[in-house]
């Protein structure tokens, strides 16, 4: 490298440029090598392994080095869980729970984060940093801690029931974390609508689950977990929105004000469109995170609520490691299906929310 000297003749310059190029390549590959090796060994290889084992009948108990440890069974695992086998109801119950969770959490946390950010960004607001700290605080701690806090807050004798007891007349304690009733069922039940009154269609089954149960809505227990997710994530997303809002030059608003635009018109005509990339990002992160919900379910689920709170991600874990007959091959198949679901959801969102503008 020392001979790379600008005052050398042209020919030597060309060789030194060649040398430089080669040296760059060696340095570059050396610097990137640890990352690539670890990614290949612990991300790419495992992904291929998951795919591979999903086509076998290996339960995980027989040692892999034995010649008859497992056989290839084609799509059997997928069929058993996803198409029309004996575990299909377990799988689609988890899908239903996860979809309710995603549909409930993502729009609420996104909208709430946006509204809070817009208010915090107002010029007249004092103590901005206090609010930012307060909103962000829940996201600094572990999802396990947050789940315990909610377990306590929503326990039958806990603070939430105490507050409701104080303000609602004749309030009866709700067992938030153990209640399996779907909130749509409860809602229409108030008007006397039950499975017996709606007609026979409710008893029809799709993937071994009654239509009536498909439309139950998230159970009270799952709704509690959804509230937890919103509570934890909104603050972080608000900070993301706030940063984007601060990036919008005030001259844009001043110009609009001169043109006589109202506050709401400015919000709809300027703020929202300029925030589109941020919104895309916030929704993408939200989708990927909520589709994989695991930690909170691990803590807040119990035997009573397994049917209405198990998420697909938790189902993968439970199938692989819990119960009387754990099965790694079947769990791998469910994991691959979840991968595909998340992939499709992200693509759909890209189409509908307009990800082309996103720069993240």
């Amino acid at each position: 490298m020392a001979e790379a000297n600008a005052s050398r003749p042209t020919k030597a310059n060309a060789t030194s440029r060649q040398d430089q190029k080669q040296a760059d390549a060696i340095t570059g590959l050396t610097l990137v090598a640890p990352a690539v090796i670890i990614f290949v060994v612990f991300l790419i290889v495992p992904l291929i392994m998951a795919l591979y084992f999903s086509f076998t009948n290996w339960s995980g108990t027989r040692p892999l080095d034995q010649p008859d440890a497992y056989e290839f069974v084609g799509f059997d695992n997928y069929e058993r869980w996803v198409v029309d086998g004996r575990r299909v109801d377990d799988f689609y119950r988890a899908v239903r729970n996860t979809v309710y969770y995603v549909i409930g959490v993502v729009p609420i946390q996104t909208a709430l984060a946006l509204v809070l950010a817009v208010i915090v960004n107002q010029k007249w607001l004092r103590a901005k940093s206090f609010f930012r700290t307060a909103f962000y605080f829940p996201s600094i701690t572990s999802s396990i801690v947050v789940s315990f806090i909610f377990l306590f807050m929503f326990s039958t004798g806990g603070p939430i029931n105490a507050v409701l007891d104080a303000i609602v007349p004749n309030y009866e304690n709700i067992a938030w974390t153990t209640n399996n009733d779907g909130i749509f069922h409860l809602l229409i039940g108030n008007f006397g609508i039950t499975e017996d009154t709606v007609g026979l269609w409710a008893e029809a089954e799709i993937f071994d689950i009654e239509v009536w149960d498909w439309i139950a809505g998230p159970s009270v227990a799952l709704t509690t977990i959804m509230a937890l997710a919103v509570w934890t994530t909104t603050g972080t997303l608000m900070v993301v929105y706030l940063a984007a809002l601060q990036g919008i030059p005030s001259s844009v608003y001043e110009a609009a004000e001169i043109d006589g635009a109202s506050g709401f018109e400015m919000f709809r005509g300027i703020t929202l469109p300029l925030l589109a990339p941020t919104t895309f990002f916030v929704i993408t992160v939200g989708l990927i995170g909520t589709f994989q919900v695991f930690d909170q379910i691990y803590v807040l689920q119990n035997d009573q609520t397994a049917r209405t709170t198990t998420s697909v991600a938790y189902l993968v874990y439970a199938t692989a490691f819990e119960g009387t007959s754990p099965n790694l091959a079947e769990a791998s198949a469910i994991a691959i299906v979840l991968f595909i679901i998340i992939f499709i959801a992200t693509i759909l969102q890209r189409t509908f929310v307009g990800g082309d503008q996103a720069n993240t």
Partner: protein
Amino acid sequence: MTNQTSQSSEGMSTLRRILGILGFGFLIFFAIVQITPFVLTIANSFKCDAAVENRPMPFIPTFNTVSCRDDAGEFISADEQVNGIFFNPSLDGYRRILTDQLPRWTFNTAFLSIVVTILRLIFDSAAGYSLARLNYVGNRAIFFLILGTMMIPGVVLLIPRFLLLKEMGLLNTYQGYIIVLSVDAFGILLMKQFFESIPKEIEEAAMVDGASRFTIFARIVLPMATPALTALTIFSFQGNWNNFMDALIILGGNADLYNLPLGLTILRGSGQDIQYDLVLAGSVITTLPMAVIFLFFQRYFVEGVSYSGLKG
């Protein structure tokens, strides 16, 4: 005409004022919702089981500490601990978890978080610089490979990683946890983006002086990247301090190696009979170090989030 305009603008400003008050009220309400659970968690971590569900819920401790068991070894009743909004704090929950494995778990958490963070700072910045500045065959391919790995849900990797580490003899070891988490795609992309924003002229000048690429990276570019490295440190430390799923899979078989989140789930026990004093005391101890770091380095947390828009 003029009159009308001023009237309407007066109406506007009244409307604005009302909206402002409503907005401010909303912020206050939401701040209370965000903070109250932590206050109640801390207060109740000092109560004996019987007093946890007492109503009204006292949250102001007195200076008289009590023991949860009386001289005869019986649990004290809620009335013996609670008086209106005041309560006599008990340290029993903390005492019990601290004589148990909690100190060990705290050490594990700190150790793993620090080691993983240091490795990420090295590997992520090295890879980030390589991808940002050095030309070689495969540079783009490697970039897209790393970007692509961000699409892989953690759950998919759960089982095969478990198998792989088992085969390698790294299951239930510190090394297993450390090696799997020692690089992250998010950190590499963060560093790459930062390095790209540094003007090339600075490096070119150093090259004319005969410095090698590696020297330039280590001596010139890396010190300039302090903001990105700070963000990476915070995300990485926080992410690992709070990491549950990887700890569950990789360290779940040896209680001596648990980190705090994993240990907490054991404290909880099974079934509905939850010992809140233990669980809440454990939650406070788990959160405390992150809370202190957050309050001191708040600016970097917020900058980091807005910088990247992503949480570890």
